[in-house]
């Protein structure tokens, strides 16, 4: 059981890192020499607070268009999925073991 959970986490994390790395390289290739104060903008009075759209629809469209920010966002979602997936896996494995405590 340990091996399954460990494997899930390791591959999930590697996948997420690879996706984020690709997105980062693309982002720096296009915007690397821009000042960050132009790229990272927080708007307290609007939702979402940043100057990008984090919604899933926009992200999928962005993935197809190879938009770097969408790729990074996708990689982060894969990362977020790792603890969720391992909780589900653990619950499944514990009950399969007949361990009802």
């Amino acid at each position, binding site marked *: 059981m340990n091996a399954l959970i460990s494997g899930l986490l390791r591959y999930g994390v590697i996948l997420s890192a690879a996706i984020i790395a690709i997105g980062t390289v693309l982002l720096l290739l296009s915007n690397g020499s821009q000042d960050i104060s132009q790229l990272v903008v927080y708007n307290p009075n609007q939702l979402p607070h*940043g100057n990008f759209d984090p919604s899933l629809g926009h992200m999928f469209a962005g993935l197809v268009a190879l938009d770097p920010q969408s790729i990074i966002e996708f990689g982060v979602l894969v990362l977020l999925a790792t603890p969720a997936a391992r909780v589900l896996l653990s619950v499944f494995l514990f009950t399969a073991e007949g361990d009802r405590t």
Partner: protein
Amino acid sequence: MIAIEFTIIVLLVSVVGGILGSILGLGGAVVVTPLLTIFLGIDIHFAIGASIVSIIATSSGAAAAYVKDKLTNLRIAMFLELGTTCGAIVGAGLAVYANSTLLKAIFGCVLLVSLVPILMKIGEDIPKSPELKGLAKRLSLQGSYTETNGTVVRYNSTRPGAGMFGMVVAGLLSGLLGIGSGAFKVLSMDLAMKLPMKVSTTTSNFMIGVTAAASAGIYIVRGDVDPLIVAPVAIGILIGALIGSRLLPRTRNPTVRKIFAIVLAATALEMIAGVFGY
């Protein structure tokens, strides 16, 4: 400063954050958040979004190794997670009503006060294993791991109720302040449940990812997770966690506790300084 410089600086500091965080059962946010807010002038909301991501990265990044090495106690983690998740949900719900300045001040003071029992145990390697009885016995909250020199360490836990209470509080703080509260979890396992230090930190490490994932979705939807900021944080932390998780099994329990005490003090002071607007 330009984007590429920013990315490299954040990446390098996040590696350090990942190493420390994975050894101590904390999220790398302890190192990353002050870098972002104090040194790089990033808005606090983006910093919190990045810290949530860094907590998940530290947790999953290191857990792969710790679970395989059997340092993380999965039964205890799963039992205690019930408490943190409930606490986190309630905490996130109450966040709108909370006075976060007051909470940070209280949290900072609690952390400082907890230094006392930690320092009293500073040289301890394996705690005198308490007798397994009551709820701890019924749930088999015990385990063993093997040190790199081959010694097998068997341990029991005690006072699971107190540990659970600590977890609910940790969860509440996570939801209210957007932190992983790994420090609190480690303290509960170390002081209340008397687990060996390395088991406490690795088990906390495993748990903080779930707590953070619970709030992460909300932060992303609100646009508080900025890709340019979180990308180097995530990658740096993952690299750091990989390194840290290789280092920890070779590190002795008292050494881990000493490093924890230093970082605990720093985190407490950081929290309190934050109250005064730093």
